[in-house]
């Protein structure tokens, strides 16, 4: 072995070592962040199995025996509201996503008079803070006689949520190759067909992103349902969990936190099915100004 090749080999090894230590370094830092981010979740699962005396005795002690009845209490109190949330949020999200896809497609692919005006009309709403219209929206719902119905959630949710969705869909669909649509048109496909059979399947990642984003934000919305839904039998979980937490908060921490865990489960299930597409959609580069 010549000296030269030996030196090259050594350099190669050194670079490799440096590379490996760099890689393990960044992995280590990331792991730390992941662990820290999961602390509240672990804490939630852990504390949900304790009863009141186990809380006060030693917070960090393993709950022995685990108090599974906490979940019984939470289930009985919250199941109704959880189902309400699932129903309202799924319909709301469906509305938002279908409206966003349609208008996004139109603004991305079609040319027509007043296009820019209508586009700006929708986009300008991004600058309107939700709190500005809080009072008039409430009065409007009251006047339309929709108060204490789920329509009072669905319609304003759909109306407000579609703006961002339209923008994201438009950016994403603009990035789809125009030639696809042209050849479809040459083959005699109508606009609706092009929309359903070409644009929608290709836009799946961004639609999944919209589904997840909107599900999370609608599921977490508690100000609007608090205002427009009066009866507890129709109330959604995000509001119910507050009442539940203040009613159990003084007497039964474990049951309260078991309720928190339960309220998380629907989103977790949804996430399990859509996480791959969601991540693909956001990282596709369509999400930008």
């Amino acid at each position, binding site marked *: 072995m010549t000296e030269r090749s030996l030196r090259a080999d050594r350099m190669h090894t050194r670079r490799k070592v440096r590379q490996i230590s760099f890689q393990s370094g960044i992995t280590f830092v990331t792991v730390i*962040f992941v662990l820290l981010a999961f602390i509240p979740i672990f804490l939630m699962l852990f504390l949900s199995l304790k009863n009141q005396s186990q809380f006060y005795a030693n917070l960090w002690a393993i709950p022995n025996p685990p108090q599974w009845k906490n979940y019984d209490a939470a289930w009985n109190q919250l199941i109704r509201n959880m189902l309400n949330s699932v129903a309202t949020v799924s319909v709301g999200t469906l509305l938002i996503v279908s409206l966003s896809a349609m208008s996004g497609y139109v603004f991305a692919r079609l040319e027509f008079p007043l296009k820019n005006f209508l586009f700006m009309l929708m986009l300008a709403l991004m600058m309107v803070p939700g709190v500005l219209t809080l009072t008039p929206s*409430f009065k409007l719902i009251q006047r339309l*006689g929709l108060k204490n119905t789920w329509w009072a959630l669905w319609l304003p949710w759909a109306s407000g949520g579609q703006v961002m969705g339209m923008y994201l869909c438009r950016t994403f669909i603009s990035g789809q190759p125009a030639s696809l649509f042209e050849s479809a048109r040459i083959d005699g496909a109508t*606009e609706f067909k092009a929309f359903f059979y070409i644009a929608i399947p290709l836009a799946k990642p961004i639609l999944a992103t919209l589904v997840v984003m909107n599900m999370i934000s609608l599921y977490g919305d508690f100000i609007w349902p608090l205002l427009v839904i009066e009866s507890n039998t129709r109330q959604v979980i*995000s509001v119910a969990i507050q009442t539940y937490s203040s009613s159990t908060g003084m007497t039964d921490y474990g049951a309260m936190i078991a309720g928190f865990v339960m309220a998380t489960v629907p989103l977790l299930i949804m996430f399990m099915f859509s996480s791959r597409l969601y991540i693909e959609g956001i990282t596709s580069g369509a999400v930008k*100004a």
Partner: protein
Amino acid sequence: MALKRDKAAPPTGGIRRAALYLSIVFALLLIASCALNIYARGQTDIFRMVEYGKSLQNNRILVSSDLNMVFLGTYHNTVLAFDANEKQVWSSDIGGAIEAMRYDPQRQWLIIGSQNRNVYIFDAASGENIATYPVNGKVYDLDYHQETGRLLVSANVNASSHTLYILDIETGEPLMTAKLKQVARNARFSKDYNHIFYGDARGRVIKMDLNGETVASAKATTEVRAVAVVHKTGDVMVLDTLGNLFRFDEDLNQLYTLKLVGEGRAVGVSDDGRWVAVGTREGDIYILNERGEVQFTDRHSYDVTQIYFGEDVSYAVTLSPELFEFSTKKLDNINTMSLLSTVTLWTSLGLIVLLASSLIMTFPRSRAKGRRFFEALYHHRVAYLMLLPSIALILIFNYYNVFQAFYYAFTDWSQATRTMREINFIGFDNFVKIFNEGYFLLGVKNLLIMMAASFLKLLTVPLLLAELVFAMRTGSGESSRRRYWFRLLLVMPMVVPGVVSTLMWKNIYDPNIGALNTLLDTVGLGSWKHSWLGNPDTALGAIICMGFPWVNSFAFLVYYGGLINIPADLFEAARVDGSTPVWNFFHIHLPLISPQLKMLIITTFIGSVQDYGGVYLLTQGGPGTATYVPGLELYYAATKFGLYGYACAMGLIMFVVILIGSLINLRMKTQELN
């Protein structure tokens, strides 16, 4: 294009003539339809404001058909009598607001119940005071049975003491006294005058015999405001303050109930039992048929205090100088007429469109233009159709509200405003108030601190994590799997709903069983313990630190997406030039993810200007005002304090701030493009 113009070539005379004839036909139909509409509207416009009785606040009305006179009882302690020519015959000042009036046609006596704890008897024709019977309590209601001369008086002492009397009209001697523990605003004789119906403040409806024994009872939803007996059937109508109307039969079995919008004030029943009218505090009048179906509604400016069904003329009294008369005859075909008015309105609109298009067809030049317009509309129909639902929704649920908010910001609209017509334009008073008093400005300082913190949180941890995951070496299968798992794990905490994670943090900060204080105890730093959210010095910091280590999943993914979309040849070229990772970061990464950065900054800005959810859940703005933010003040103004105009003004200020921020952002973008 050329082909099209050929098609639109000079029209033949035949088409033009046909179009002209059609225009004439449409024009005639339009005139007929408009005329019909005006007629139908006239028939549905049943309330007519009368000219007399312009006292400040009318409260009660009574008509004597034998004397042909109308009596008005006002809230300002006067009784006014008018003859058939609407001329005032007499008036009398009695020392209290008039709450009830009855008439004895045989003796021609006017019986008046007043809040000054007296029942007065006047000679109806002359206005001479014949007798005054003092009762123990403000008179809220009277009912009178002429044959036996028995007067039922509902007299209120205070909120927990109320008396029902039956007085002999000649002597004023009480024949019966029933003491109640609840306010019974209205009490009426039953159809056969052997029982009394009353409703109390606890929402109970009671049937009582003439000895004061309860015979039957029923429940309304809340405080009963008005009771009326249907003299044809003996049924009882009950109205509560939530606007629920009930119909009970003589034994108080519920026949139907329905909810009307507004706070119930008055209920009236026509003598033939065919019409029931309900008046609300908001000024709405609902007219229902026997089956309880709303036939007609009309909105007035002030609260409705009484609806009086007379033999010929009926009246609606509002707590104002505005007194309305109406005729039950017009009510008979009100349904048909209101249908007709709607139908003719739409027909007229349709005919206007048809007329316009046929006129356009008549003249060659406009015809070509109109054709091009419709062709364009038709040609792009798919686009417009697909946009229709979105645009319709934002117009109704966003733009309408935005303009309303702009308007109300300059008014004194508040909870105290009873009807929309009472809202006054007050210029910039709301804005002056925002800057002079209130917590809005107090919150601005906290908001700026929180906003700075959220920018810091946005620009550090998620970007760092995106760089870290991006730096995990690609190429071999091992590292891309590593990237995948870290990406997934960093996104996963997102599934915890915002409300839940906020409440969880509230629990972590709990001074007694919170994880934070327990942890400090465990590691021997017990002296650092705090009531984190209860202490004004730490509350704001605690809210900012919530969510540590601030792995914003969305921002992380957006940054990461920006990084992986940077073309690889850029790095290649930089490496050839001997670049360092730091140089790469500032000269390649940052510029190329600037669109993502800008989007995140603007959404964070918009979000944090109006955000108050976290503060609301954690501290409600407290302790004191340590964590107050403008959004919270707005929310309280709109919900707790009912100052709607003031709330809109605050929203408007936030809108302007957001607008300026967005415009600066937009400007930065355009500069970059140049």
